[in-house]
């Protein structure tokens, strides 16, 4: 039966993990996401999950590797500095094609930075992070409801593609309280058989080996080719985004997560000043909704990217736009959340500059 609760984003993630049949969680506390391990240490353990606080993020991600390799639904969460420590393990997991769920509750960086929300880890999340050519499936929730929803979706996508899935969110969404509905979800119906897992070799099969080592370069290239084919399949099937007011917009904002929510307010404010602004909210940051941006480029005067960083996703928007229309940007860094008013102000300046160019 579905259930309605009022919860913090982090708690909603933890509750969803239990309901999604997560077998094992290994983690290391870091603000602003420690509620997840706290909630799971209580509720998760009581409800049969393996929940361990371990010595470091390096250990945690390698425990995920071991547990996922042994066939479990495994999950870890962290925040920026911790995610950096996990990158080695993530690269190994991506190559070994192990399904697992990761979450980065992004805080301000670089370095130890601040515990305030940020989107400074976009590059790290969608462009690799660890070594080698690999991709995570990256989902960006914009509400507490989506924080929970993407846990189920994340596990299912991870299993479907045997690929790690990352939920990229931030300290504000992790900490804010909202209504959240937990749907009916039967984990048993969602857990596929894993004949490749290392569970002990039965006499009727050869040993299962989980590895990312391929000493011959042609063999390594073949693995890479197979991985890239998988990524193309993911790009064809798993693009997710949301459009708001884009039909007759003069300019379309592009923002994900928390900034997308602020941009909804910008749309309202803009209406009062008589300008027509739309919003494209990428939900999957990898695969990125390039096609819809390309399509919208045919009908708008420009795109305006809003991020809590110095301009990272803007590179992907530019790729989608492919030079057809101007792309503007407004960003705050280091844990500062932009206000709707300052975004609107910057957006108006951008629109003025487009109008000037058109006149020339």
């Amino acid at each position, binding site marked *: 039966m579905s259930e309605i609760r009022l919860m913090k984003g982090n708690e909603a993630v933890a509750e969803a993990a239990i309901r999604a049949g997560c077998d094992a969680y290994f983690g290391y506390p870091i603000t602003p996401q420690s509620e997840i391990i706290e909630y799971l240490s209580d509720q998760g353990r009581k409800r049969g999950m393996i929940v361990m606080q371990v010595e470091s993020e390096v250990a945690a991600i*390698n425990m995920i590797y071991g547990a996922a390799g042994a066939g479990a639904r495994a999950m870890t969460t962290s925040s920026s500095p911790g995610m950096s420590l996990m990158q080695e393990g993530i690269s190994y997991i991506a190559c070994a094609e192990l399904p697992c769920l990761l979450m980065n509750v992004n805080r301000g960086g670089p370095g130890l930075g601040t515990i305030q929300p940020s989107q400074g880890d976009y590059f790290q999340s969608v462009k690799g992070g660890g070594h080698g050519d690999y991709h995570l499936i990256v989902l960006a929730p914009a509400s507490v409801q989506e924080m929970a929803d993407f846990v189920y979706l994340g596990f299912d996508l991870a299993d479907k593609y045997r690929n790690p899935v990352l939920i990229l969110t931030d300290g504000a969404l992790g900490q804010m309280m909202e209504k959240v509905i937990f749907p009916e979800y039967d984990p048993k119906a969602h857990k596929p058989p894993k004949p490749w897992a290392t569970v*002990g070799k039965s006499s009727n099969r050869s040993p299962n080996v989980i590895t990312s080592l391929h000493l011959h370069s042609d063999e390594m290239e073949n693995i890479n080719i197979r991985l890239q084919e998988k990524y193309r399949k993911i790009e064809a099937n798993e693009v997710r985004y949301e459009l708001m007011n884009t039909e007759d917009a003069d300019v379309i904002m592009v923002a994900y997560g928390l900034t997308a929510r602020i941009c909804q307010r910008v749309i309202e404010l803009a209406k009062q000043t008589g300008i027509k602004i739309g919003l494209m909210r990428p939900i999957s940051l990898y695969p990125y909704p390039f096609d819809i941006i390309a399509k919208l480029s045919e009908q708008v005067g420009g795109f305006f990217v809003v991020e809590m960083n110095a301009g990272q996703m803007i590179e992907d928007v530019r790729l989608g736009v492919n030079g057809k229309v101007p792309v503007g940007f407004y960003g705050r860094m280091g844990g500062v959340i932009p206000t709707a008013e300052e975004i609107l102000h910057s957006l108006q300046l951008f629109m003025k500059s487009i109008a000037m160019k058109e006149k020339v």
Partner: protein
Amino acid sequence: MSDIQVPTNGMEVVWEKPKSLSETRMHYCPGCGHGVVHKVLMETIDDLGIQDKTIGVAPVGCSVISYNYMNIDMQEAAHGRATAVATGIKRVLPDRLVFTYQGDGDLAAIGTAETIHACNRGENFLIIFINNAIYGMTGGQMAPTSLLGMVTSTTPEGRQVETQGFPIKITEMVATLPGTYYITRQSVHNPTAVRHLKKAVEKAFKYQQDKKGTCLIEVVSNCPSGWKMNPLEANQWLEKNMFPMFPPGDIKVEGKLIEKKQITMPEQKETKI
């Protein structure tokens, strides 16, 4: 390379390759201890009838592809992370038998934290720690276990305390942790030592079946290539130089430390190779 056929010509078979050891020809250098330890490990798995229940974790180091030789389910781990990977496996499959197989660079350098914490949690698995006092795979560089005065490719003048510190005795260190149950140091330099090693492995697996906690078997081994010696010289050198620093014998049995005399540091010049 596989399928090594040994003609029996009607003779009685008195010894066979363990069935848990695959047919694949090993890549190790002639005389290297890795192959012997693999054989002992797989033979014990056969004897105990646990091939279908055992999951191994391969390291980064010369034995990185040990899963090619061990006819059981295995996972390869990032450099140093084997005990973390093993923790993940064992925690979700508590009724399986899990072991890690790690070199000194893997376990005692990059993986020190994972090693100590797995032992401290008393993870119920077996750690096989091959101490050849050197990084074999990357070409004979200094390991944390390299002896004082030992010449390696990164200590051409011999390991000096002032710059490289002392050889680390991980085995004695983890023996002090309450999570460990059976900690022993064995070697493979002669047939008697190999037989002792086998007994130790057998014991450790039995303790694991009884859920007693972490067992760690350090195997003082050789690296003829890295040491630039022939296999015989390597085993003689091992006995003379490695044992004063890493004396074979049990350190902790059934959760109790065995009292040992203080071990004095050997002179730097004695261990120069």
